[in-house]
């Protein structure tokens, strides 16, 4: 899709729930796109200050498990620590290791919006695929469905 930016996400409609189509030039960029998309499902990240950060390191047996674990980490931080995301940075996706951080701040009902109550990022029909290679650069894509 030539009109699209190199990295990004769009909403995918789904009867039961909601999904994100995410893409990037590397797995790390794809993970960042997914994190940004999820942040938009949870809140309006533009209203969140990136004043604190949470370092995330996890291990996974394949890219699908890594992506779901990464997104689950954001859901968990929001629910337990009330940490709302503003920016997502992924340093490396080199299996089994994934490392990066979420920048954001503690939830403040006066300034922040809550959008969807997301139960989980699911494995439904999930495949992290390299859809293009070559001189124009690689392209990695995935569709993640969230249970809400």
């Amino acid at each position, binding site marked *: 899709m030539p009109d699209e930016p190199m990295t990004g996400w769009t909403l995918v*409609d789904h009867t039961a*729930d909601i999904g994100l189509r995410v893409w990037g030039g590397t797995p790390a960029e794809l993970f960042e796109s997914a994190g940004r998309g999820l942040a938009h499902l949870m809140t309006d990240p533009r209203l969140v200050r990136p004043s604190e950060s949470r370092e995330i390191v996890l291990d996974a047996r394949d890219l699908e498990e890594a992506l779901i674990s990464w997104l689950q980490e954001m859901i968990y931080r929001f629910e337990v620590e009330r940490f709302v995301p503003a920016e997502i940075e992924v340093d490396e996706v080199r299996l089994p290791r994934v490392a990066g951080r979420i920048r954001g701040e503690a939830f403040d009902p006066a300034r922040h919006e809550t959008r969807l*109550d997301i139960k*989980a990022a699911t*494995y439904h029909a999930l495949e992290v695929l390299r859809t293009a290679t070559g001189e124009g650069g690689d392209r990695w894509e995935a569709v993640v469905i969230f*249970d*809400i």
Partner: protein
Amino acid sequence: MSKDEWIDVRKVNDQLFEIPRTGGMRVPGRIYCDERLMGEIRGEGGLQQVRNVAHLPGIVGYSLAMPDIHWGYGFPIGGVAATDPEEGGVVSPGGVGYDINCGVRLCATRLSAEDVHPKIESVVGRFFSNIPCGVGSEGAIPRVSIKELEKVMTTGAEWAVSRGYGRREQLEFIEERGRLGGGDPSDVSARARERGLEQIGTLGSGNHFAEIDRIVEIYHPAAAAEFGLEVGQVAILIHTGSRGFGYQICDDYLKVLGRAMQRYGIQLPDRQLACAPVESPEGRAYLSAMACAANFAWANRQTIMHLAERSLIEGLGLTPRDVGLRLIYDVCHNVAKLEDHEVDGKLRRLCVHRKGATRAHPPRGQSSPWNVGQPVIVPGDMGSESYLCVGTEKSLTETFGSTCHGAGRVLSRTAAKAKFGRRDLVRELAEEGITVMAKGRGTLAEEMRGAYKEVSRVVDVMDRAGISRKVARLKPIGVIKG
């Protein structure tokens, strides 16, 4: 979502369709529904999932679906599957769902709709302020300690009663008496505990709600008389589950069982169907953690019933005696349980998965104190209607003692929002005599009627099939939502 128009579906009778066994299916599929519902079900992805479930090792009889079937994660919602642990039968978190022991509790009151009507705004206001709901809701009751949370995991509704939320005699009226055995807290991750700590006594978001209902019609006078229900009476309906605690347990064990599957050489068409033999360390650990979540959910609904009673007392300025809140029954509709079932004349212990399906036991046995059959509560979509039914003998011979659970979504959340999002739904419902308070306007549109199948058609199919009988219909006069 896969298109399933190609799937061969044959009509067995007016209430039942069958998918013949082909390919890797170990048993045929069976879907309880009529022609009209089948028209809506086709193409939605649920039929493909009925086929996928039929591939599970050790599955017995049929891969079943109730008329409220719709697409779910791994299993369809409305799916029922029993596996035999002695024949390598598996347990699958996808056959239970993320919201472990999501369920419904119906309580009767001594109030009539006329008593409540003049003060409905105040009553709904009290519900809304006393029962935390919405995204990240917490703090209904003093925060429990980790030690206390372990008691919740092992004793369920009984824990809530011991803390003063409700009365001991109410436990009789809960499936499994509100306490599923075999739950060992050491099988529950630290993360699940953290997510659960502040969420006991909270409603959450999505399709969960608490309603003040009026009984509008009785179909089975003998059963209604035994339940002490009549037209015009006010009842309370609570629909919620195990909150973040259960979601985290599901996610944790999808990973554990996904890895174990390779070890046991199990291959299935969908990763969300991750499973392991019931008689394996991983399978046993999931069932144990799942029981902890089921118990959490029963403690949650027990606590919310107490908060609802307090809201009625405060909102109406009456005594507990005048309100007379009593539990008719509490059912879970997302669970896997080891149960004894007769198959081909032999009693076998099976692992029965009910995902968006309700146990519906006949008028005998230990499953409920009622003589007319175990109550089944089938909530409709917001602002429409709900049904009280009872189980029958036939449910034991045909559906492993199971029936439908609700309406079943037909519009996606985004489509529902596009359809209803700009309308003043709170005012529209108020004009129909339904007072609604909701945390998020979006949720209200997403859960609006029209987003679901008509619940009356769903319960009618099961009534005609002779699996669960209709007893009464209820309509809301007040609703709170996340």
